[in-house]
């Protein structure tokens, strides 16, 4: 957990409203776990005030220039433009200054013994799954299920395929891959591999459906959640979700930023989660 000022190496549109940003981040690679995130802000802008949370898509390094400097280690985020902060990010260029707090939070646990590993990503929710896939594929057979509303919401398929995964795409409107919800593919795959481990990230309704399916089949599930965040370090208590067994009398709040964003499904109170309004990436599919 560090906070550092750094510069942007690249900020490219990959699809309408979706951008990839490479940020210079020496030694970040050593410290980050799949599923962790950063809090990012552009320097020299007063507004918006608060940083914005983004999952780490990947880390890597750009070859040195002829100037004899070492390779440029970077971290990369993949973001969708949805509001003030991301609109501002879209306008930034190579060389612009940003400040990064991270890596933050608890990432995915990859303690699975054996068997199929199934990753389910809805829309921009596939971000934290990319590093995870890269790690899992070294040991296990990995299937990547990518869902979205429409063709334009499906990103990075080639990148995932290049990792050597079985990749399945589905769209609600059938404009790419299977027509229908990604959960239908999940059920089909779980029929074939009933003791797979599942990892999911995406809009809340998708996560609920995934949880329903996995719970019914007693399949181990980890989910990555979203929440409005102010501090990112567990200090403000703005980002809490209700944990399993929560009640007014015996509150069991978990900070999405610190005890999450990745949770084992059984740690959460899914009934209350379903009642949350306007948070958790509903707008981000």
């Amino acid at each position: 957990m560090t906070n550092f000022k750094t510069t942007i190496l690249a900020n490219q549109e990959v699809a309408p409203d979706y951008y990839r940003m490479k940020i210079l981040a020496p030694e970040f690679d050593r410290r980050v776990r799949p599923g962790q995130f950063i809090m990012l802000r552009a320097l020299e802008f007063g507004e918006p005030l608060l940083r914005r949370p983004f999952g780490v898509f990947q880390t890597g390094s750009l070859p040195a220039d002829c100037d004899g400097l070492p390779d440029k280690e970077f971290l990369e985020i993949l973001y969708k433009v949805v509001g003030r902060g991301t609109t501002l990010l879209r306008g930034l260029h190579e060389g612009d200054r940003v400040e990064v707090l991270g890596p933050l939070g608890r990432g995915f646990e990859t303690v699975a013994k054996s068997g199929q590993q199934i990753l389910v990503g809805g829309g921009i929710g596939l971000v934290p799954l990319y590093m995870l896939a890269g790690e899992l594929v070294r040991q296990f057979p990995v299937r990547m299920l990518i869902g979205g509303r429409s063709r334009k919401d499906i990103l990075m398929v080639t990148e995932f395929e290049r990792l050597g995964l079985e990749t399945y795409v589905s769209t609600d409107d059938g404009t790419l891959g299977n027509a229908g919800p990604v959960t239908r593919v999940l059920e089909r795959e779980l029929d074939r591999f009933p003791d797979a481990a599942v990892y999911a990230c995406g809009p809340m309704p998708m996560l609920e459906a995934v949880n329903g399916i996995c719970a019914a089949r007693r399949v181990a599930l980890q989910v990555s959640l979203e929440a409005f965040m102010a501090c990112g370090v567990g200090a403000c208590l703005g980002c809490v979700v209700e944990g399993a067994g929560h009640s007014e009398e015996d509150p069991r709040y978990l900070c999405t930023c610190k005890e999450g964003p990745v949770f084992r499904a059984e740690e959460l109170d899914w009934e209350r989660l379903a009642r949350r309004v306007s948070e958790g990436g509903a707008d981000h599919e």
Partner: protein
Amino acid sequence: MNSPSPKGKAKETGPDLSVALAGLRLKNPVMPASGTFGYGEEYSSYMDLGRLGAIVTKGLSLRPKAGNRTPRIAETHGGMLNAIGLQNVGLESFCQDKMPFLRQISTPVIVNFFGNSLEEYAEAARQIDHIDGVAAVELNISCPNVKEGGIVFGTDPTAAAAVVGQVRAVLNKPLIVKLTPNVTDITLIARAVEDAGADAICCINTLTGMAVDIRSRRPQLANGTGGLSGPVLKPVALRMVYQVAQAVNLPVIGVGGIMTAEDALEFLIAGASAVQVGTANFVDPAAMIAVIDGLDRFCRQERVPALAGLIGTLCC
């Protein structure tokens, strides 16, 4: 201040940033605002906590408190709204789980607390008074008196005096009282609190505000309204600190929208003896260190030997 600074290099002594506050001597006037710094530990990897003038904890209550439903925060132009609902671990767990860490930090620990009735306030004060390693308490009176119809203690001079009196009666440690800005005349509350036995006044808590999601036609916060904090608050906070410093003979802690050393200086000049940094911690986890360093730099540049000499020097 004759002893050489502990980590001191062999150069001339720097400006004296220390301030006196309610019987405490702080190495500098900068401390976190309650609720924006957790219990200290959360930020320990970003700074040397020992450099802070003091540490103020998240607001505590007798028993653990669940807080509000989410969304609990929303950003506004130049600020944020929060309706955390005073979620906290409760005093018992605080003593067990948080104090051992805080005791190791070489700076005074100030415990912020609240209650929902006179009895709750008094009982909490009684318990905190016995906690070893707590240098002072900060009484948050921006809470409704649930037993008496829900009027917020801090908005009525009589109710404010009553709660301060109850707490004073059982407390030996220095007592800081934190005022709400949602009042017509903050000097009336400040004077009532002074008369009831406060040792210092902390000014201000958040302004009540609201934000609406125009698509869903719901408030952006589950709670409906929330507390406004951040840079937007500074002009109001500064005005109130100035008014209160004129009205009472107690030291005042200024809080509201402080992001930089320049902001802190505005408060000191307006009459604050110390300052608290809140929302800025979220924007930059090392904000307080930057403020302290900036105060030091200002004193050097302007040849101010002792920062305390600036307090209340506003010429009107």
